[in-house]
């Protein structure tokens, strides 16, 4: 479903990803863990086309995300090409990024109406179903600013699902939440993982959650994959010292 081929990303002199290769199968749930600055979030941002690669290519669902054919030559993708491949991908942000100028319902209907061409009625019906699923149907007429962080994040998840993505990117979605609100959001995500076949790429510091939903966990450090394995193996018996150190540091922080 997703294929990174020798992807390099720099910010100034700082090399964030060093010739990164990795693949994700359709329907697979992959968790990315590692210290901050290890490039996990950059991977999601590259997939969402919020950043451009410096070299290498990224494919999503067999289509190239980073480049396109133009008069027989391979050139960097333009906005039009990006819009076609972006259709497959949805993203939930650490800071929710709900639109404050729209009520909750309109946050969910705006893109389906304008991008997918749904009628307003269809979009609203679907939006209400999704709000029901995240337990916020009664807040459809609220402004985002009237919701708690946890509620906002559940709306943001519903908003991403409203676009019927094949791939869902979750970027530290509980990091900005008060501890008591984290569980509601994680439950919604576990539910989605169980009941849909959406491919999920998850950056998280919640190791328990990773253990529950992930098919595979990738340990990152300094722009490289240090180690990857099923969660049962990686969390209990990692091969690499770097992974052991990281896991111990995370556990001690609790």
């Amino acid at each position, binding site marked *: 479903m997703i294929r990174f081929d020798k992807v390099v990303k720099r910010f100034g002199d700082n090399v964030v990803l060093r010739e990164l290769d990795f693949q994700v199968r359709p329907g697979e749930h992959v968790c990315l863990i590692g210290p901050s600055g290890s490039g996990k979030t950059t991977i999601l941002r590259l997939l*969402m086309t*919020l950043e451009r690669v410096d070299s290498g290519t990224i494919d999503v669902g067999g289509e190239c995300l980073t480049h396109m054919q133009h008069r027989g030559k391979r050139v960097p993708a333009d906005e039009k090409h990006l*819009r076609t491949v972006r259709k497959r991908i949805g993203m939930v942000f650490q800071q929710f990024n709900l639109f404050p100028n729209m009520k909750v319902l309109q946050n969910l209907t705006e893109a389906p109406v304008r991008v997918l061409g749904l009628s307003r009625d269809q979009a609203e019906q679907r939006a209400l179903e999704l709000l029901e699923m995240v337990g916020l149907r009664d807040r459809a007429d609220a402004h985002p600013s009237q919701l708690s962080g946890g509620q906002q994040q559940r709306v943001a998840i519903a908003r991403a699902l409203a676009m019927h993505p094949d791939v869902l990117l979750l970027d530290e979605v509980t990091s900005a939440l008060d501890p008591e609100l984290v569980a509601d959001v994680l439950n919604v995500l576990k539910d989605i993982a169980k009941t849909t076949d959406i491919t999920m790429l998850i950056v998280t510091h919640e190791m328990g959650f990773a253990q529950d939903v992930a098919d595979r966990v990738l340990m990152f450090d300094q722009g490289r994959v240090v180690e990857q394995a099923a969660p049962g193996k990686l969390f209990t018996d990692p091969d690499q010292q770097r992974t052991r150190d990281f896991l111990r540091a995370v556990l001690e922080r609790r």
Partner: protein
Amino acid sequence: MFGDVPGFLRTILEGASTTLAVTAGGIVFATVMSFVAGLAMLAPARSVRAVSRIYVEVWRGTSEIVQLFWIFLALPILVGIQLVPLWAGILVIGLNGGAYGAEIVRGAVQAVPRAQREGAVALNLSPFDRMRRVVLPQALVDMVPPFNNLFIQLLKGSALVSLVFLQDLTFQAQAVVLPTNTDQALTILTLLLLVYLALSIVITAAMRFLERWAAALVGRQPSTRSREVALSGGAA
């Protein structure tokens, strides 16, 4: 000792329609120019950015009164078109205000958090929809207080048209009433100031209303911060 106050006032107010026309026309035209030039300064195309930047710098860099005389006296000679004085007045007031307003629009659009654009990209909205549905509505809230200041500057600037013999409030007071009542200058000019004060209060009241409406739109209280920013910046 105050002289014929009602008589003075009546004559001064004969200029009200001109002042209102120039100010209102100037406000409309300046608002349009502000958005056109302000958004053009953020355009992807370098040439578009350059043209709007030149417009803004030239109109902000020169004196409004020079612009007025240039449009009234030099332009007709250069292109052979004599504009109707009232329209020429609106043109100058609007173009001048638009140059300042463009910076307001640009600044407010750039101040919308990057995360909001990214949220819109993640939903695959087109660049046009991103601007129109997500960025601009949020930027609008921060634009209202500085635009209030700008519009009051336009009202004040409208007095300049008296210098090219348009019969506005200032012309009526200065060129009609004053010459035959020089010993009543204090009364006459105080009346004139009060009329302008009343008009600017009307503008501010309308903008406060607009601000509350815009703030409700994005679900927040009108910020006291943006008003203070507006007060401390934005000279003509």
